[in-house]
C-alpha cells in the first residue's frame, strides 16, 4: 500500500487511489468540477490543482488524475495552488453571464462557492461576453443554458457511460464549444433528471423547477424512494409542507449517486397524493379512531367465530414497523381469529429491470412483507378466495387494491385513498411513507430509514395509532407505541438482532432477514 504525505500527515492509501480520493478520505476539500466519483475522469476543468512536493520537481498538478505513489508528498493549499485556482476561476468567469440572481442553481452552485473561496474578487475582462443559447430545452424535463456552462462535460460523460445514451455532447471547438443535442433529438434517457444535480453550475436545470424556489429555503429530509424495490436513497427538499424537489442521496451500497426520473418526478405524488382520505368513518358516518378500531375488532371476531375467513391485505408501500405491528396484532389475537386470518399482500407485477437502477418490481417493501411471513397472493388468487364465499371479512390496508367484487359481511379500508372506501364499513385514512418514521427493506435486503418529511393532512390519525385502536378492540396489549419501538422489536423478530432505529446508519444496514413460514 502506497504511503503518502498529505498536508504533512502520513496516510496509507489503496493502490490506484488518486490524490483527490485520498484527500476526500482524509476529510480535506479539494475543489473540483469535472471530477465525479461515479464518472470517468476527464481532468479538464483544472480547478483541482494541488502542489506536489515530490517525487520529481515541486509543481502544481491536478489531483483528480494524479495517482498516489509511495513517498508522494502533496499540499492542498499553498500560495501556488491559490494562484492557480484564482487564475482558473477568472478564465471560467470570463464569459460567464453572472446571472446568479435569476439562476435556479444559486445557493448550490460550485462556481459561486469556489469563487467565494478562491476568486480574485475582480474581473479583468474588458471584452464583450460570448453569446450562446440561454434557454434551450434539451427535453421536456431539462433546460440548457450554454452561457453558464463551464464545459466540465460531467453531463456528457453521464449520458455516455452511465445512461448509455450519448445524446448530449460537446459540439464545435475551442471557445465556441458548447453542450448540445442533435437537432430534433431530445434527450430520452430515463435518468436525465440527474443532469441537473451533477451539473456543478446552472447550465442544466429542471424545467419543472424553473424559477420556482430558492434552494436555501428547503429543509432536506432523508428518505427512500418507494416506486420500485430498489429503494433508492433520496433527499426530499421540503418547504411549507410541500415536496419541491426529490434528489438522489449518495449511497454507495445501493443507488450510488443517482436516481431514475420516475423516482425524481413521481415520488412527490406518491408521498403527497392530491386525493386523500381525511376522515375516519364508521358505517358511513364520521367517527373517532377508537370507535373505528372497536368496530373493526368486533367485526373480525364475529366473522371468525361464525366460521368465516378473514383476509388482511397489507400494503407494499409501508414501513417494516407498520407491517410488524399488523403482524403482532394477529399473532396476539384470540386463537380463532388468528387461525381464520390470512395476512397477505398483493403480488406486484415484475418485468425485467433496466440494468441500471430500476428493478422492474414497482413496490417498496416486498422484502419486508416476506420477512414477516405475509402471503403473496395474485389478483386471481385474491378474487378466487372472495368468490369461494369463505372469506366473510376483509381488511384492506393496500391503497393500490382498488376493486373488490364480492359479497362479504365486513370491509375495512385503511388507506391514503381508495375507491373501496365508499362501500367500506370502516374507513381509516392512512399516512404515506413521506409522513412517517420507520424503515423499508429493498429487494437486495438493505434496510434503510425513512423520516417524516411532511405533516399528514388534518384527520389522518397515524398508522401505528390506527393499528393500536384495533388492538385495543381486540384486547391485544403490548403494541409498539412508536416507530422506534416497532423497529427494535421488528429487527429482533425478522433479523434476530435487536437494533435501535436511531443508530441505523444513514446508508442503511443489511439485516439477514429470516423468512417466516408463510401461512396461506
Amino acid at each position, binding site marked *: 500500500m502506497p504511503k503518502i504525505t498529505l498536508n504533512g500527515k502520513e496516510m496509507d492509501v489503496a493502490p490506484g487511489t488518486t490524490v483527490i480520493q485520498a484527500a476526500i478520505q482524509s476529510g480535506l476539500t479539494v475543489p473540483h468540477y469535472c471530477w465525479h466519483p461515479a464518472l470517468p*475522469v*476527464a*481532468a*479538464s*476543468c*483544472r*480547478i483541482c*490543482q494541488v502542489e506536489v512536493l515530490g517525487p520529481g520537481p515541486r*509543481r*502544481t498538478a*491536478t489531483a483528480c*488524475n494524479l*495517482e498516489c505513489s509511495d513517498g508522494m508528498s502533496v499540499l492542498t493549499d499553498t500560495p501556488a495552488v491559490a*494562484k*492557480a485556482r484564482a*487564475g*482558473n476561476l*477568472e*478564465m*471560467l468567469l*470570463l*464569459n460567464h453571464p453572472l446571472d446568479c440572481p435569476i439562476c435556479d442553481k444559486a445557493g448550490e452552485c460550485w462556481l459561486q462557492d469556489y469563487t467565494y473561496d478562491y476568486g480574485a474578487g475582480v474581473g*479583468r*475582462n474588458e*471584452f464583450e461576453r460570448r453569446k450562446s443559447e440561454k434557454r434551450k430545452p434539451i427535453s421536456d424535463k431539462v433546460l440548457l443554458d450554454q452561457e453558464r456552462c*463551464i*464545459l466540465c462535460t460531467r453531463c456528457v460523460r453521464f449520458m455516455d457511460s452511465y445512461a448509455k*445514451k*450519448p*445524446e*448530449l*455532447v*460537446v*459540439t*464545435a*471547438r*475551442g*471557445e*465556441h*464549444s458548447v453542450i*448540445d*443535442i*442533435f*437537432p*430534433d*433529438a431530445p434527450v430520452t434517457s430515463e435518468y436525465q433528471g440527474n443532469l441537473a444535480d451533477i451539473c456543478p453550475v446552472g447550465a442544466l436545470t429542471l424545467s419543472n423547477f424553473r424559477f420556482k424556489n430558492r434552494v436555501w429555503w428547503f429543509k432536506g429530509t432523508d428518505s427512500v424512494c418507494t416506486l420500485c424495490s430498489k429503494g433508492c436513497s433520496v433527499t426530499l427538499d421540503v418547504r411549507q409542507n410541500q415536496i419541491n424537489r426529490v434528489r438522489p442521496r449518495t449511497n454507495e451500497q445501493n443507488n450510488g449517486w443517482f436516481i431514475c426520473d420516475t423516482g425524481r418526478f413521481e415520488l412527490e405524488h406518491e408521498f403527497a397524493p392530491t386525493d386523500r382520505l381525511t376522515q375516519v368513518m364508521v358505517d358511513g358516518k364520521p367517527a373517532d379512531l377508537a370507535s373505528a378500531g372497536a368496530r373493526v375488532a368486533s367485526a373480525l371476531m364475529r366473522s371468525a367465530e361464525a366460521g368465516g375467513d378473514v383476509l388482511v391485505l397489507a400494503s407494499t408501500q409501508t414501513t417494516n414497523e407498520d407491517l410488524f405491528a399488523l403482524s403482532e396484532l394477529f399473532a396476539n389475537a384470540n386463537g380463532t381469529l388468528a387461525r381464520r386470518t390470512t395476512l397477505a399482500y398483493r403480488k406486484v407485477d415484475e418485468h425485467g429491470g433496466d440494468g441500471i437502477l430500476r428493478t422492474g418490481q414497482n413496490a417498496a417493501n416486498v422484502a419486508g412483507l416476506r420477512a414477516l411471513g405475509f402471503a403473496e397472493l395474485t389478483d386471481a388468487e385474491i378474487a378466487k378466495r372472495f368468490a369461494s364465499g369463505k372469506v366473510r371479512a376483509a381488511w384492506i390496508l393496500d391503497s393500490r387494491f382498488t376493486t373488490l367484487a364480492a359479497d362479504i359481511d365486513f370491509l375495512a379500508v385503511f388507506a391514503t385513498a381508495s375507491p373501496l372506501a365508499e362501500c367500506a364499513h370502516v374507513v381509516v385514512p392512512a399516512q404515506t411513507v413521506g409522513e412517517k418514521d420507520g424503515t423499508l427493506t429493498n429487494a437486495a435486503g438493505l434496510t434503510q430509514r425513512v423520516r417524516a418529511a411532511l405533516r399528514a393532512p388534518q384527520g389522518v390519525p397515524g398508522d401505528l395509532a390506527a393499528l393500536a385502536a384495533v388492538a385495543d378492540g381486540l384486547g391485544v396489549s403490548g403494541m409498539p407505541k412508536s416507530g422506534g419501538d416497532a423497529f427494535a422489536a421488528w429487527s429482533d423478530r425478522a433479523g434476530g438482532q435487536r437494533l435501535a432505529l436511531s443508530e441505523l446508519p444513514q446508508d442503511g444496514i443489511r439485516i439477514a432477514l429470516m423468512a417466516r413460514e408463510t401461512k396461506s
Partner: protein
Amino acid sequence: MTIALDRDADLRRRLDQLVTRYPQKRAALIPALHLVQDKCGWLHDDAVRFVAAYFDTTPADVLAVITFYDMFHRAPKGTYEIAVCRNLACKERGADAVVKGLERALGCREGETSADGLATLRTFECLGGCTEAPLVAVNWRYFRNVDTAKADAIVANLRAGKAPIQEPRPEEPTTPKNEIYLTRRMRDANGAVDLATYRKSGGYETMTKALGMERDAIIEVVKQSGLRGRGGAGFSTGMKWSFMPKEPKKPHYLAVNADESEPGTCKDRLLMERDPHSLLEGMVIACYAIRAVAGYIYIRGEYLYAAECLERAIEEARAGGLIGPTSSHKIDLHVHRGAGAYICGEETALMESLEGKRGHPRPKPPFPAQSGLWKSPTTVNNVETICNIPFIVDKGAAWFRTMGNEKSPGNLLYSVAGNVKKPGIFELPLGTTARTLIDLAGGMVDGFQLIGINPGGASSGFLPPSKLDVALDHDTLKAEGSMLGTGAITVVDQKFGMVEAVACFAKFFEHETCGQCGPCREGCAWASRIVERFLHGEGTTEDLDVLSDLLDNSVGKTICVFPEALAGPLRLGVKHFRPEFEKLVKGSPTAAAPATSPAANF
C-alpha cells in the same frame, strides 16, 4: 436522402472496406464522414443519421465529431470550396488581397457561397504551403503563389467547368554542397519518386537488412544516432521506442504524425508528395523495432494530394509484396486523413482522432507507450523523423553524427517563408544559422526589411535580427527562450509589423484550441483579443501585464502543452518587440493610424 444513402451500394462497399483497416470500427468514422460529405456535398441531418446508424451510435455522438473539424460542413456549400490560407507567410505575401480578389470574382463575401452555387469562399488557418505563399486550395487542390490575377483565373477556370488540378511543385532551391540524404532521391528523380525509381536507388534494401536484425539492436542504433523527433518537441526517437514493451501483451501500433499544421511548416508534405516510399520503408523498420503490427499515417485532411501520393505508394508496395499480408513481415500500413484540426498533431489528440473521436488530448499518464491507440502500446513519430530511419539503420549512428552537432545531430528540413526572394525548403545540418538560411533563400525581397524571425513554427518565440547568427538547434534556441520546433523560419518585415505577426499566431491558437480545458479555451481567445486591440491602436499598457499574467495562469495548468505554444510567440514577441506594442497604445501619437492595412481590411 437517407433512403438514397441507405441504398447506395457503392458507398456501403467503400464504408465496409474502410472499417477493415482498423481493429475497431469506430476508427473509420472520420474517413467515412469524408466519403459521405463527398457524396452529399455537406453533412445534413439525414447524412448524420445515416452515419450514426452505420456506426451504431447516436446522431449527437457523430455531430460532436463533425463539428470539431474545420473541413466538415453542416450547411450547404458550393460545388467548389475555395480556401485561402490566412496565416503568417500567406498574409505577409498578400493573402488579404487574394481574398478580396476572390470575393470580387465570385461576387460573394468570405464565408459565403457565390449566388450561382459555384464556390464557397473560406479563409483557413495555415494550409501547409508557407514556402508557396499565398496558397489557395480549391477542393483541396493547391494553387501556389496566388495573386489577384491568378485568383481571377482560378475562378474563370471553375466557371468554364475545368476541375482543379494540383499545381506541380517547383524544383526546390539548390542547397550548398552539404551532404543531403532526405531529399537526395527526389532531387535525382527531379520529381516524385515512384517504386521503381525508389528500388533502383537501393530502396527497401535497408528494410530487408533491418528485418534480419535484432529488434533491440535497431532501437539501439537509433538511440546512438542521437536522432531527435522532427515534429517540434525534439525528444530522442530511440528513447521513445525503448519505452515500448518488449513482450507484447496486446498488439502494438505505430502512428506517423503527418498532421503538419504548425504555421510556417510544410516540410513533411514535401517528403510525402515526392518520396513517399522512404516514409513507408522507415515505418516498416520502426514497426518491426517496436513490435508493432500496423502503422497508420495520420495526415491532415487538407493534404489531399499528399494522401493520394501515399495511398498510391502503399498500393505499389503492397502489390510488390513489400508490406501487408503478402509480405514476409505482415506489417501493414494505412493512410488516415484528418479533417482540419491543428490539435490533432498533439500525439494523444492524434490518437483520439484516429479512433474516430474529437481531437481532445488525453491526460498523461498513461503515456502512449503504455496505452495509446485502442489502449494498446503505441509510438507516435513525425514523418521526417521516420524518413531518417532507413538512412540511420543503413549507414549507422556514427555517420549520422557527422552531420549537425553533438546534441542535435543529422540534417533537418529547414524552410524559409515570408518576403524572401526564393522561399523554400532546405536540407541542412542542424545548427545552421538563420542568416545562412535567409541568404540561401535569396535574401529579403527588395523594399522589405527584416525586423524579426519566427524560427520554428507558430509555437516558437519570435527573435530579433540580433539573433540571426544563433545556431538553429534544439538546445541553443531553448536557451534563447524560443525553440527549434520544426525548423520553419518565417521572416517578418517592416511593412507587416511584429504586432500583426504576433496577432496572426494568437488568432491561430484561438481558432485551434480544442476547448477542453478552461484555462486554454478561454485564455487563447482572451490573449488573441488583447493583441488584436493593439492592432487597432487601442491597446493599453496594462494589457501587456494582463497578457503576461493570463499566460502564467494557463501555462502548465492544462492537459496538454497548448498554452505553452500560445505563450511562445506572445512572450518573446512582447519581450523583444515591446516598443512596437507601445506604439499602438491608445492615445499615443503613433496609434492613430493602425500599423498595417491588411488587418483592417481582412
